[in-house]
């Protein structure tokens, strides 16, 4: 049993223990390399053709002022686009909005997803029914969902009606058009629709934690909360890393909802201007600014990368107890 716990508490950064058989070591590792590459082959081909190539193109564009039609004309401007971005107030506003959004949404959606998954997994009845219900939000497309929420949160919509009727509010709040509330509305909407996805992931991850661990803990007198924090959460570290990273990426790339709610403007007064929205504006809404849009996209990628690496570091440290 001791070995089982050891194995299950491996974190994702842990180096793999050397293979027990060290005979023919180099031949073995060469074979393993070959196998590794073979397994990765389809991925590599598509990665290069459809991802790296376009990214390289965009990287190139970010250093130009380019006009893509009527004869492709490139004007090499070096880092001018990046300098302009640094001086652009709207870019900073977008960055602030997006960061604030991520800071709020990611922890909440991770916590709720984990909690709900744990509850679902705890042997309650009607498990399948609940799971199917919880899964539903992932099924509807984000545009349909956004419009539904726009109705729900509108001045005469159900949410306002209920809040006013129970006396919580004196007068209905225009959630979508108030600078203070617009982004929050999107946050609520997003959490509502992404929690099921991450919850399902957590559920699958929970299957891999052996019951024996919990049994042993019960024998030692642990209560539910202790089991949750000392067994469940640490064992889910790789999955949590996934949820965190995908959450960060998703939040920083938030586009659909901001676009639909503000009609593409990012208003009122830039309240819903997310970074992806500003990229879109420069890529498709104005002509001749594709170079700038590309530079912004590269900047966003770097920001997400830095935040993700930070999150990964933090999460690792937490699991070392």
């Amino acid at each position, binding site marked *: 049993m001791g070995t*089982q716990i050891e*194995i299950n508490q491996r974190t994702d950064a842990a180096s*793999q*223990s050397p293979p027990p058989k060290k005979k023919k070591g180099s031949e073995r590792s060469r074979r*393993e*390399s070959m196998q*590794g*590459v073979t*397994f*990765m082959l389809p*991925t590599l081909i*598509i*990665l290069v053709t*459809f*991802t*790296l*190539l376009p*990214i390289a*193109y*965009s990287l190139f564009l970010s250093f130009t002022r380019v006009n893509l039609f009527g004869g492709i004309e490139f004007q090499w401007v070096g880092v001018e686009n990046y300098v302009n971005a640094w001086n652009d107030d709207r870019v900073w506003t977008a960055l602030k909005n997006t960061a604030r959004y991520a800071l709020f949404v990611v922890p909440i959606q991770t916590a709720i997803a984990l909690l*709900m998954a744990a*509850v679902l997994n705890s042997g309650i009845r009607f498990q399948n029914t*609940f*799971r*199917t*219900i*919880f899964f*539903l*939000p992932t*099924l*509807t497309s984000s*545009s349909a969902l956004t*419009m*539904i929420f726009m*109705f*729900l949160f*509108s001045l005469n919509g159900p949410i306002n*009606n*209920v809040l006013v009727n129970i006396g919580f509010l004196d007068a209905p709040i225009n959630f979508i058009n108030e600078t203070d509330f617009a982004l929050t509305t999107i946050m609520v909407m997003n959490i509502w629709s992404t929690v099921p996805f991450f919850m*399902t992931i957590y559920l*699958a*991850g929970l*299957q*891999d934690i*052996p019951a*024996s661990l919990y049994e042993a803990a019960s024998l030692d007198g642990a209560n539910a909360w202790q089991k949750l924090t000392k067994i469940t959460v640490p064992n889910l570290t790789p*999955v949590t890393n*996934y949820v965190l*990273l995908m959450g960060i990426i998703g939040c*920083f790339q938030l*586009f659909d909802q901001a676009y639909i709610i503000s009609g593409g403007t990012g208003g009122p007064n830039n309240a819903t201007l997310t970074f*992806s929205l500003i990229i879109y504006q420069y*890529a*498709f809404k104005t002509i001749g600014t594709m170079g700038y849009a*590309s530079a912004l*996209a590269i900047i966003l*990628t770097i920001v*997400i*990368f830095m935040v*993700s690496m930070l999150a990964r570091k933090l999460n690792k440290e937490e699991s070392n107890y």
Partner: protein
Amino acid sequence: MKKKKWPRIVLYVILISYALVTLYPFLWAVLASFKPYSEIVAGGLSLWPEKPTFANFEHIFTKDPLFPRWIMNSFLIATLGTIVNVIFNTMAGYSLARLRFPGRNYLFLLILAVMMVPGQILLIPNYLIMRSLGILDTYSALIIPGAINFSYIFLMRQFFINFPREVEEAAQVDGLNRFQTFWRIVFPMARASVATQAVFVFLGFWNEFLKPLLYITSPEKYTLTLGLQSFQSQNATQWNYIMAASVVSIIPIIILYIMLNKYFMQGLRIGGDK
């Protein structure tokens, strides 16, 4: 006794309230598909239609004779795409977690980094690539670039990290090579995560909108989402049709989910009580 019962009730309360919160918007959308446009737009609290009507469904099914064709197209693409994805993603995830090869960690970081690039600016370069490959307006344009999905490669890797070595080593002692070990032992044991992946990948293909919009021009090749998009006129969005269309496009997914449901909870307990 008290200690045991109290937490149970709390759990149920949490579950039921969350279920209600989850269901409400969804119910709203489904019921809205039975309402005429004017009723949807008028707002108001009532979920239930004042004058229930099937007109919306009738409209979308009959308006365009290609509607059944679109459903089939979506099905075809989503199914093919899912099969291909599940195989490639799982292989890649396994490789990244288990097999050591030079540059593996850099490759993993690269895959993570690549996910962080916002998709809008890749639209036009990808379009140019499709055009030069000559696969515009074909199903290949939708399946080939989407044959792998970085986030699910990432997911599978995370799942494989904790996968117990002894199972694989036992298989190798039994004379299976790596491929056989992977296909016959590892893959089946990762059922829970594979099934999860499959459902979401399918969903991704099913709901995919931007790629068909740009790559597919012949109406017979439209996917369902693209075909439904055409119910938006230039000036106003016909909500009644869109709600009805959303309901129609959700049904296959629910069926798929129910079919794969048993795999979610089943996953063999890895390690532990062997």
